[in-house]
């Protein structure tokens, strides 16, 4: 036996060596600071940013993670204000004016606006960019944003290929005039969207034609932007890094040296990264972690108002959901207050109407409230007393824990208050979208986030020819009012028309509004000047980093 024991000792020597190498690597880091502490000291902001960006072409991307990156490396005529989402902050345009009915807008471009390759940013660059996104062959998903421009719709649909018919006029290299289809007082808000961003024509042409999608101009080594930052490194599925740009006209105001955007899809993973000190900002919190942060680290958790509505679509082509009484009964039987208190827990407001309340002076006419008695009465009036004879139906959700919890709560409420039995079906995202789009559902969970701060961005989805209606509901009066709104410049009259639109919606309820969103996120105390914003876009040029030494 002794022989074998000695042999064991021999075997242990190489193991020992390997283990000590391991130990060295484990402890080998002399720097005990977390990545966040190191980054704060260096002036680098580390952000959790949803998913890997599709691309960086401002005319082709559609998502929020992309927009977060784009507004750091590009700048439109109008930029984001650090704290007020409705206020227009001068971007490339230093001042602008419009005529009395807001149909003709003139923008005066600043002379010191530069591309990151040193070229000046000119009015013809903007004109080229608008022509590019409207080019039919480019197939830009967000080209519809520009159809407020006169003649843009015809150009986009290929009815004409003469761009001079579109209402974009270059008066001189620093003056741009836009002619619109109708009065659009909220145009400055729309211009903050990346669909309106300029691209450098020389760069686009050197990597392909004006309408080529598969161009490599957005690779980090090729990309030329005009924003406060420029891209320096992009590792797919790892991170994207931007650094402060020297050519930006307002570069003296930019406090941080760079930003790293990390694509982290899962909320629980992102939260772990935040807790481990690997990111300054965690864009999503799993619902079951909210209580922990609220009680233990209230200084890092934030709930900001967010311009969006969570709602359930009804398929109005399927009986008995074609009956407005049934839809109203189902809506009134949802205890929205209980849902925001006990399920979502993020300080959301129960939705009284569809349009987010208080948007640019607009007050919703809605007064939806949980009313089980009225709901039961309506259901009986529709021919289903105490739920008797109500057909079996399903709520369609896309697979996500929060949606499931809400659906189950509503399922229970309908069972308790109406005596009807509704199932819950969850589907993978793209399958869910396909079924919702083709009206293959009974009731479907949905959400809508405004594109800009104006009620019309909510109301436009319920017109008969809107691709986002997806309920089969249509109302002639509603459609007529929408057209009227587009032609009305007077804000008071415009708001009155929109209130009438929303009243029609609330009478018929093709969808049940549930709550108005909040943004729930975690942010490290080192990050300063990060204010609540209705659309959740935070202009990074105003952000500051001050190391506080805070650790979770």
């Amino acid at each position: 036996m002794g022989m074998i024991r000695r042999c064991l000792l021999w075997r242990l020597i190489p193991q020992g060596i390997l283990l000590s190498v391991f130990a060295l690597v484990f402890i080998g880091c002399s720097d005990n600071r977390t990545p966040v502490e190191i980054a704060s000291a260096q002036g680098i902001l580390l952000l959790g940013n949803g998913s890997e960006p599709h691309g960086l072409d401002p005319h082709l991307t559609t998502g929020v993670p992309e927009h977060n990156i784009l507004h750091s490396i590009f700048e439109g005529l109008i930029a984001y204000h650090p704290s007020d989402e409705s206020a227009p902050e001068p971007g490339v345009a230093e001042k602008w004016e419009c005529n009395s009915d807001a149909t003709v807008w003139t923008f005066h471009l600043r002379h010191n606006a530069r591309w990151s390759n040193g070229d000046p940013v000119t009015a013809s660059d903007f004109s080229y960019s608008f022509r590019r996104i409207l080019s039919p062959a480019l197939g830009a998903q967000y080209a519809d944003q520009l159809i407020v421009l006169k003649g843009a719709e015809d150009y986009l649909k290929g009815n004409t290929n003469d761009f001079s018919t579109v209402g974009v006029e270059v008066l001189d290299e620093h003056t741009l005039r836009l002619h619109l289809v109708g009065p659009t007082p909220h145009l400055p808000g729309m211009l903050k969207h990346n669909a309106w961003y300029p691209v450098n024509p020389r760069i686009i042409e050197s990597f392909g034609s004006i309408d080529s999608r598969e161009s490599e101009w957005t690779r980090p080594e090729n990309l030329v932007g005009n924003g406060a930052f420029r891209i320096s490194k992009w590792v797919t599925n790892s991170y994207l890094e931007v650094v402060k740009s020297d050519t930006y006209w307002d570069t003296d105001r930019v406090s941080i040296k760079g930003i790293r955007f990390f694509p982290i899809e899962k909320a629980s993973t992102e939260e772990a990264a935040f807790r481990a000190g690997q990111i300054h900002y965690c864009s999503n919190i799993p619902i079951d972690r909210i209580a922990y942060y609220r009680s233990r680290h209230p200084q890092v958790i934030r709930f900001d108002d967010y311009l969006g509505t969570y709602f359930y679509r009804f398929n109005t082509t399927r009986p008995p959901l074609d009956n407005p009484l049934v839809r109203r009964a189902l809506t009134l039987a949802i205890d929205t207050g209980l849902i925001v208190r006990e399920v979502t827990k993020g300080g959301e407001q129960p939705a009284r109407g569809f349009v987010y309340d208080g948007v640019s002076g607009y007050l919703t006419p809605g007064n939806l409230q949980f009313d089980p008695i009225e709901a039961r009465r309506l259901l009986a009036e529709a021919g289903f007393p105490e739920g008797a004879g109500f057909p079996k139906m399903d709520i369609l959700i896309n697979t996500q824990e929060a949606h499931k919890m809400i659906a189950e709560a509503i399922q229970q409420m309908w069972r308790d208050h109406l005596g009807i039995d509704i199932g819950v079906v969850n589907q993978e995202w793209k399958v869910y979208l396909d079924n919702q789009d083709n009206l293959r559902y009974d009731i479907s969970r949905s959400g809508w986030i405004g594109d800009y701060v104006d009620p019309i961005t909510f109301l436009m989805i319920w017109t008969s020819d809107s691709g986002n209606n997806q309920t089969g509901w249509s109302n002639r009066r509603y459609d007529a009012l929408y057209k009227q709104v587009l032609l009305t410049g007077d804000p008071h009259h415009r708001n009155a028309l929109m209130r009438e639109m929303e009243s029609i919606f609330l009478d018929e309820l093709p969808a049940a509004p549930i709550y108005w969103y909040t943004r729930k996120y975690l942010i490290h105390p080192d990050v300063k000047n990060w204010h609540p914003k209705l659309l959740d876009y935070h202009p990074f040029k105003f952000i500051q980093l001050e190391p506080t030494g805070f650790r979770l």
Partner: protein
Amino acid sequence: MPRFLISRLLQTILVLYLIATVVFVMMKAVPGGPFSQERNVSEHILRKLEEQYGLHDPLHVQYAKYMWNITPKRFSPGALLRFDLKNGLGIDFGYSFRYEGRTVNQLIAEALPVSAELGFYALIIAAFLGISTGSLAALKQNTAWDHIPMGVVMVGICLPTFVMGPILILVFGFWVPESIRLPVLFWEPSYDASWMESLRYRILPAITLGLYYAAGIARLTRGSMLEVLGQDYIRTARAKGVSPFNVVVKHGLRTGMIPVISYLGPVAAHLITGSFVIEYIFMLPGLGRHLINAALNRDYTLIMGTVLVYAAILILFNFIVDTLLVWLNPRLRLGSKP
């Protein structure tokens, strides 16, 4: 031998085309397309998009085009070593539907080295832990040295990586004292750091992946060593006065390793290709994460590219192991009579 090689090569090619066909059919059968999104785009824009990506062609035309693009047309090993499939084999998977301006070839060339590196570390960990625990257990059969490590190993086999990963994250990322904590996510630090610092980011994913296979190797080593250590020639060696170290390492392990090595071939392939879950848990920029995201995004070209690369690696490793085994053991050769 040449007959065996040629027949296996032909089989391999057939299998890859078959896989490509099945994937193509399945992709087209799944509801939802690459351009469906929450906010609907208008009909005319959708039509333009489909035109741009060739989706308006009849299915058989799309299929034929695709098959031609993925057919090898040249061979240049130098380019292949840089994971450049286009110059190496003339295979062009096309542009990604989801990631504008990036080709599937580029995405694979960036991601494959990450998966391969992770697989390499995991293989070292699996072999080292597996062989040493297995040998120890065999030498000390039926003692605590046998039961405890083999019990732990049993747990390793039973715990899937998606359970083991989060447990290790919790323990080494949050519970242990701050001075020895390990990074819980990402492939490299978010600041400029030494290679040693970067290596620390790879420890937890490599251990999670390695542990699972270490368990199998340990059990195999133990069984095989027990058998070998009882053989006459080991007793003879000991009787001759060979040092105990040499008895175990030179005489015992050498023979005892044969079944383990034939097991390591497929394991190596699995370690490179089987890390999707781990890449997702630890947010690593490897091929597995592309595969999952591509399926969710209906990124047709990327789905096809990743599936085929995975399939090719698996088949290649199995092919190498089979060839080695045939070379070692003539009885397995084709047409040989028993």
